[in-house]
C-alpha cells in the first residue's frame, strides 16, 4: 500500500485514469499514512469519512468517463481555507467550534476538478509565523531530521502542516497561503515545491484573511509538475474577490517542457546578505550554473530597496491584520469569554483567544495606524512598497525574464532555536521572500540541495506579474539538474504491527 503514496501527484492522476487502482484504494492508503504520522501533528482535523465519500464519487466519475483534471487525487487543505461543514480554525483558539457554511473558492475549484479532501493542515496561528510554533494546536514536526540527530526540526511556516504533510507523503499536494513567504519558506525547509502566484491569480474568498494586500493562495507539492497541475485548478478569476484578476489560466504543466534557452535571469546583488551561511551562497551559485548550462543568460541586477522590504512588511502586514482580526470579537462565532460588560467580553475573549504572536502583531498594527503615527509608519511603508515594486519593474523592463535567489537564509532550525527572545530573529527568515509579496509578484521555491546537516535547501525564482509559466519552466530545469534528495526516513511511523494493536 505504501508504494501508492510514494507516487507523484501526476503519476497517481494518470494511474487512476488507467484504473490501475481506485480512488478509494488511494484514499485509504493515504489515510493509513496519516494515521501513522500523528507524531508530526501536520493535521488539525482529519476528514476520513469525507475523503472516502469523495473518492467513491471520483471512482464513479472515472467509470463514467467524466474524470476531472484532479480526479481522485487526495489533498490536504491548510486550515486557513474555509471548508463547508468542516471545522476551520486558522490554528487559533478564537475560532473554536467554527464550522463554515461555505467553501473557499480555491478549495471549491479543487473539488470541482475531482480532488479528494483528506483533512485540514496545521499552520502558524492566523498564518503568523515562520516555524509553525505559534499554532494553538501545537507545532508541526518536520519529517526531516539533521543527520545523526533526533532533534525536532521545524517545517517552516506558516504553511508548515502543508509542507510537512507533502514531504512525509501524507498527501499528494496541499493548499497553502503566502503573505511574506509562508509557502516558499516551508517548501524550502521540507524539500518540496511551493509557488506563491501573482497577487490576484487566485481568489482570496473564503480564506481567513491575514494581510489582504499580501495574502495569496498557492500549492505545495513534491514536484514542479505536481505544483503546476494544482496551480491550474486553484487559479482563476472570482467575481467574489474584486482583487482577483480576470485573465485566462494557462496550462502550467505544458510550460514545464518549454526550456529556458535564451532566457535572461537576474541575480540581485542585494540578496547577498552578511551572515548567511556559505552553503546558501554555494547553492545559489550552483543554481546559476544549472540555468546557464540550460542556455539561460545570467545578468547581475540591482534591487536597491530590498533592505527596506522587511521593516516595511512588518508595518503593512500587522496594520492590515489588526483590522482583519477585529471581527474575532466573541459576538457571532468562535470563542466567547464572558466579561463584566461588552468591552470586558472583548478583552477577555481576545486575550484568551489569540496567541502571543498574534497579539503582538495586532498591537503593532494598531500602533502604526493610530493618529500621529500613521504617516510616519503606514504611509512611509506604502511608499517603500512602491519603490520595491519599481525596482522589479525596472529589472523586467531591462529584459530580465526572472530572478534567481536563495529561498531562505538558512536550512530549517530546531524547535525553540529562533525568535524565543527576539521576534525579529524569526522575522529575518522571510528576508528573501517578503519583497515578492510587497511587489505582488509570483515566486516559486524549488528544492536544490541539502545542507551540511542533510536538511533540504531551496532556491527561489521570482517572475513577472502573471508569468508563472516561466517560473515553472525554470524550476523544472533546476529540478532535473539538482541531485535527487531521498525522501525523509519514516521515523514517525510506529513499528510494524503496532497499528494493529491500536483500539
Amino acid at each position, binding site marked *: 500500500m505504501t508504494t501508492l503514496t510514494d507516487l507523484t501527484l501526476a503519476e497517481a492522476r494518470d494511474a487512476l485514469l488507467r484504473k490501475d487502482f481506485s480512488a478509494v484504494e488511494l484514499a485509504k492508503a493515504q489515510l493509513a499514512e496519516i494515521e501513522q504520522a500523528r507524531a508530526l501533528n501536520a493535521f488539525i482535523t482529519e476528514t476520513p469519512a469525507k475523503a472516502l465519500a469523495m473518492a467513491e464519487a471520483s471512482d464513479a466519475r472515472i467509470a463514467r468517463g467524466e474524470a476531472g483534471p484532479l480526479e481522485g487525487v487526495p489533498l490536504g487543505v491548510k486550515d486557513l*481555507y*474555509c471548508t463547508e461543514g468542516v471545522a*476551520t480554525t*486558522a490554528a487559533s483558539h478564537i*475560532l473554536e467550534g*467554527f464550522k*463554515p*457554511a*461555505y467553501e*473557499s473558492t480555491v478549495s471549491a475549484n479543487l473539488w470541482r476538478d475531482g480532488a479528494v479532501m483528506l483533512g485540514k493542515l496545521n499552520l502558524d496561528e492566523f498564518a503568523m509565523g515562520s516555524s509553525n510554533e505559534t499554532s494553538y494546536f501545537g507545532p508541526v514536526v518536520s519529517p526531516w531530521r539533521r543527520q545523526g540527530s533526533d532533534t525536532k526540526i521545524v517545517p517552516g511556516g506558516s504553511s508548515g502542516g502543508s509542507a510537512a504533510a507533502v514531504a512525509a507523503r501524507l498527501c499528494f499536494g496541499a493548499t497553502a497561503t503566502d503573505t511574506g513567504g509562508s509557502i516558499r519558506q516551508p517548501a524550502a525547509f521540507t524539500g518540496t515545491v511551493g509557488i506563491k502566484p501573482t497577487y490576484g491569480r487566485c481568489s*482570496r*474568498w*473564503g*480564506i*481567513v*484573511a491575514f*494581510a*489582504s*494586500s499580501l495574502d495569496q493562495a498557492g500549492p505545495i507539492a513534491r514536484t514542479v509538475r505536481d505544483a503546476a497541475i494544482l496551480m491550474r485548478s486553484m487559479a482563476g478569476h472570482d*467575481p*467574489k*474577490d*474584486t*482583487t482577483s484578476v480576470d485573465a485566462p489560466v494557462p496550462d502550467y504543466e505544458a510550460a514545464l517542457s518549454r526550456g529556458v534557452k535564451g532566457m535572461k535571469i537576474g541575480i540581485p546583488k542585494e540578496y547577498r546578505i552578511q551572515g548567511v551561511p556559505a552553503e546558501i551562497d554555494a547553492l545559489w551559485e550552483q543554481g546559476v550554473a544549472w540555468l546557464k548550462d540550460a542556455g539561460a543568460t545570467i545578468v547581475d541586477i540591482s534591487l536597491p530597496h530590498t533592505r527596506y522590504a522587511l521593516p516595511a512588511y512588518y508595518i503593512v502586514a500587522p*496594520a*492590515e491584520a*489588526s*483590522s482583519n*482580526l*477585529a*471581527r474575532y*470579537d466573541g*459576538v*457571532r*462565532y468562535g470563542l466567547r469569554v464572558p466579561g463584566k460588560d*461588552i*468591552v470586558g467580553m*472583548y478583552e477577555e475573549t481576545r486575550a484568551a483567544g489569540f496567541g502571543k504572536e498574534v497579539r503582538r502583531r495586532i498591537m503593532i498594527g*494598531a500602533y502604526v*495606524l*493610530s*493618529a500621529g503615527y*500613521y504617516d510616519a509608519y*503606514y504611509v512611509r511603508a506604502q511608499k517603500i512598497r512602491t519603490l520595491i515594486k519599481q525596482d522589479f519593474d525596472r529589472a523586467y523592463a531591462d529584459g530580465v525574464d526572472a530572478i534567481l535567489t536563495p529561498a531562505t537564509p538558512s536550512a530549517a532550525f530546531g524547535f525553540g532555536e529562533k525568535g524565543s527572545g527576539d521576534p525579529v530573529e524569526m522575522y529575518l527568515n522571510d528576508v528573501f521572500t517578503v519583497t515578492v509579496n510587497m511587489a505582488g509578484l509570483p515566486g516559486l521555491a524549488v528544492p536544490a540541495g541539502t545542507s551540511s546537516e542533510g536538511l533540504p535547501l531551496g532556491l527561489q525564482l521570482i517572475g513577472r506579474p502573471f508569468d508563472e509559466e516561466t517560473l515553472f519552466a525554470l524550476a523544472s530545469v533546476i529540478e532535473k539538474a539538482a541531485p535527487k534528495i531521498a525522501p525523509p526516513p519514516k521515523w514517525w511511523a510506529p513499528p510494524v504491527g503496532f497499528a494493529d494493536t491500536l483500539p
Partner: protein
Amino acid sequence: MTTQAKPSKLIKGATGDFEIVIGMEIHAQVTSRSKLFSGASTEFGGEPNAHVSLVDAAMPGMLPVINQECVAQAVRTGLGLEAQINLRSVFDRKNYFYPDLPQGYQISQYKSPIVGEGIVAVDVSPTEQIKVGIERLHLEQDAGKSLHDQSATESLVDLNRSGVALMEIVSKPDMRSSDEARAYVTKLRTILRYIGSCDGNMEQGSLRADVNVSVRRPGEPLGTRCEIKNVNSIRFIGQAIEVEARRQIGVIEDGGVVQQETRLFDPGRGETRSMRSKEEAHDYRYFPDPDLLPLEFDQAYVDALKAGLPELPDAKKERFITEYGLPAYDAGVLVADKETADYYEAAVRHGGATRDPKLVANWLTGDVAAYANSVGLSVAQTHIKPGQIASLVDLIADATISGKIAKDVLAILIGDEKDADPKDIVAARGLQQVTDTGAIAAAVDAIIKANPDKVAQAQAKPSMLGWFVGQVMKQTGGKANPQAVNDELKAKLGI
C-alpha cells in the same frame, strides 16, 4: 465663512447679539435593492437578521464587492448637488469595536470621496434664498442595531441594516439659523427624492442628521462647535439647534468655554446632553481597505448618468415660473414634492386643454394643500385626481360657479363624492351660478324695496354695498354671480 448673518437672524444674549453657525452631516440611505458590498436585501423591517449575508455578518474570509447601483446613486446625487464628481475614489476602513459592527470596521471613504464640492440653493422664506455649500459626499456602510429590550441579561444584535449603503453628505458651515437649517434639510430631501437615490424617510431612519453648532459674536472668528448626533426629524433639528445655541451662549456669557464634544438631543426634555468629549473621541485608525480596489470610472459614465437624471427641483421651478407664469414662491411650493409638481402639471393640462395655471396653483397650494396636510398626505397622495381639480377650475373659469361655491364642491369631493366629476356635482345639486340678469335684477329690486332705510345709508356710505350683496346672495342661495350682483346694485342704488 465670510457669510455674515443678517441682523434679523442674530439671537440675543444677556450681553449682546450672537450668531449661530451651523453645518450638517446628513446620512442618507441609498435606495438600492441590495447592500453596499453584499447581495443581501435592503428591505426595511423583516424579522431580525433575515437580511444578512455572510459578508454582512463578517464571517471569516468574506470579501466586499461594490454594488454598482449604489455607486450610480451617489454619482446621480452628486450631479443633483451640482458637485464635483471624482472619477477615482478610495474606500477606507474606519476601525472601532461595537457589537453591531461585525467587521470591527466600517467601510467608508475618508480621504478620497466619490463626490467633492457642490452647492444647494435653499428657499428659507418667500423672499429669502441662501446658498449652502456642499463639502463632500461619500459612500459608507450602515451598522446593525443593538437590541437591549429582548432579554433581561443580554443584548441582542440585528444585522438587517448592517452593510446597507449610506451617503454621507457634508455641508459647509453655511447656515445661520435653525430656519435655514430646516430649509436646507428639506431641500436636500427634495433633491434626493427627485433623483430617487434616497426615500428621505426620517421616521424609518433613511435620513439622519448630525448637526454641528457653534456660536460667535458677529464679526468674531468661528466658535468651538458641538456635534449633535443622529437627529431624526426636521422639527427636532430646529429645536436641537435652538437649545444648543442657547446653551453655548449661556456657557460663554457665564465666562466659560465651549468644549468640543459630541452631544445628543433629548426632545422630551428639550435639551442636549454630552455624549463624549474630544478626549474620549475614538482613534478610528483609518486606512485604505485592501480588499477593495480604488473606485474608478470615466467621464462617459458620469455623462450617461447625467443624461438620465430627471428634471431637478431648481430647473422645474424655473420652468414653472417661465412656462406658467407662476410667482417664484408658488413655483417653489409646488416643486418641493415631485409628485405634487407632476400633479400640478397634469391638472393644468388635463384633457388636452390648458387652463389658468395660476388658478390651478392657487387651489393646489391653498385649499387642496390644507386638506392634504390635515390628513397627513401630500397633495398627490390624496384621493383627489388632477382631472377633478381641472374640472373644478374650468367651472370657475367659465363662470359656472363662483370661487365660494367651488369651495363647497371641493368639500363634497373630500366628503361624500370622492370619485365624482365636479361638473356632475354642480349639475346634480344645481349649484350653477345665476348669471341671468333678470333674476338678479328681481332679487335686487326686492331687497331695495324692503329696506329703504338701508338704501339711504348706502347712498351716504357706499361701503354699505356689502350688506346688499350679502342679502342678494342669501336670497339666491349663493348662486348669483357676485360681479353681476355688484353691477346691478351699483346701478340701482346709484353709487
